[in-house]
């Protein structure tokens, strides 16, 4: 048994049931009513499920993960400190833009295991960078008020005083 997933651009991906089962949204659609005949699944298989927020390139990448984990129990709620296998870390890589898109898609598609992996991937890329570097990498405006900047200076000063009171 297989199901067709349609990306934002309209590209169709035919996937097997075990692979589709890894995607929470698809699983819910599929089992929402009768088996494989939920409201989002047309009786005509060719219509499939449209995933309007996921581009073709990201969907194909996500399906690689689903294919790899098709025989395992889906992770419902994971530990943020869990160790990920080598394969996962190689899969998620270090391309921040791509990881962010995978993260958004995993959240939208409700794939908790992949969501945690993407969080880990982002944290790994950010690790060792200073705040300015993080802002430049992610497109964040450093918008602290003057008072907050003073607070942060005090914070630094506090620890310096604590550690070296003389």
């Amino acid at each position, binding site marked *: 048994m297989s199901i067709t997933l349609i990306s934002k651009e309209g590209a169709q991906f035919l996937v097997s049931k075990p692979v589709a089962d890894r995607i929470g949204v698809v699983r819910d659609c599929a089992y929402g009513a009768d088996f494989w005949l939920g409201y989002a699944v047309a009786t005509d298989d060719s219509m499939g499920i449209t995933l309007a927020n996921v581009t073709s390139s990201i969907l194909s990448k996500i399906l690689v993960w689903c294919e790899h984990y098709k025989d395992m129990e889906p992770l419902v709620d994971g530990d943020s400190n869990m160790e990920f296998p080598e394969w996962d870390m190689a899969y998620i890589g270090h391309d921040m833009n791509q990881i962010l898109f995978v993260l958004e898609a995993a959240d939208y598609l409700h794939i908790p295991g992949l969501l945690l992996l993407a969080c880990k991937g982002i944290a790994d890329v950010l690790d*060792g960078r200073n705040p300015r570097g993080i802002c430049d990498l992610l*497109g964040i405006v450093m*918008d602290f008020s003057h008072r907050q900047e003073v607070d942060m200076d005090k914070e630094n000063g506090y620890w310096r005083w604590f550690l070296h009171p003389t």
Partner: protein
Amino acid sequence: MIEAPSYPWSPLVGPQEVEVVDKVRQLMADIAETTTRLEQMKAELERLNKQLFALHAQKAPIARIPDEILIAIFEAGAETLPMFSSAYKRRLDIPFQRTCTRVCRRWRQVAESCTSLWATTSIHDVGGIRMFECHLARHCKTGSLCIEVHHQFDCVSRDDRRFAKALSQLFACTAERLARVSLTCCPHTMQTIFSDQVEFPSLRVLNFESADDCHLRDSQAVAYSIIDLTKFSSLRHFTHARHINPFSPPAILIPSSQPIFSIDLSGIFLPSVLRALLQDCGNLQRLGLEGIVLLKQSETTSSRLEPHKLPRLEELQAWIDHGHSTDILDELALTTRPSLRSIELSCKHGDFDADDFDLVWFLRHASNLRRARLSLCDDHTHQVLATLGSELRLLPMLCEIHLDSYESEIYSFSDETGEAEPPCDIVDLLKPLVDMRWNQMVQSSPSARVVLSHNIPAERVKELRDMGMRVDLVDFIPPT
């Protein structure tokens, strides 16, 4: 400001000089004006760039991520907060979550409101305890706490006694909130820390590691150590590492009502001590024995652990330094344990002794075993794989076999001559599985696999895969 050149060593040379000087001054004024304009343009360019960056930033993916996912990112990178004097000296030592608070207002607000980011700390000295108390007041007023204590005690110095006492008071104050404690100190200090009549109702994980050489400095302290786990009514995981005095092992008290799921032990533990420890662990699901030196004792079989003990044990990891890891199965009466789902057996030496425990006997009784990781001597490995290939009724649920410590060729050594027998190729070793067992393994799980070392030559792996076996490769990490 650029100044016109002057030549004090020469008088005016004529009226034409005035004209030249005027031109020079005019040019200097122009340069100054242009420089000012350039600075203004640079400032304007910077302002516009910031404006453009801000416009793009509104559309950046990170801006769309909700707070709960932002917290998950912070938690994924969160580090243990060091509470000791030399920490924070270098910029690189700033923990990840602290860096996140300095990125932007939103990140700061989200990170500071998430108490779990600030709950894991490591304390190294008395100053660290003071820092920790300030930290609790500023960042972590509620929620559970995880504390790591790293301190090389010598048990007898005044400073160390003061530290142990201060730590004991700290633990008493936070007893309700402590969820995880890792101690690297001597057993005597551990006793001091938990000596008060204080219960720790939330403590789920307790890791205790004897500090290096503390037994040499104060062997008496080790001699009377009692590790009393009865105060920790919610304890699930207990680790006791690097106990090294075989003549005065710690008495570890575990009441029968304790719901401990997982125990890890390493160091020298006499079989009798192990049995005494495991007598009342009816809920135990995982037992890890690493670096254990099993000293044979003169005792009768009747003193062994009764077979009905450990009824829920699902996972056993035995990495034995001296003595065969298979012996542990016999010592702990784990030979008839149908609840076992995963087993890891490793021993460092490769001598096969005819008296060693017969693994086939074990295989016949572990009917639910799913995963086996074997780093045994060649003969034992050969014996197990040959048996699996020929007796299909054994281990019907098995779907994972790890032989990750093996190279492409396995040599068998003859006991009598000491000479190596012809090497047994890894493909020959696994072929009986492919011929007989593999279909059964795939039936019990579609992801059935054999895990081998990366050191196996690619052509040998390809050969196995061509025969239909799913082979995964890993980097073998030897036992510590």
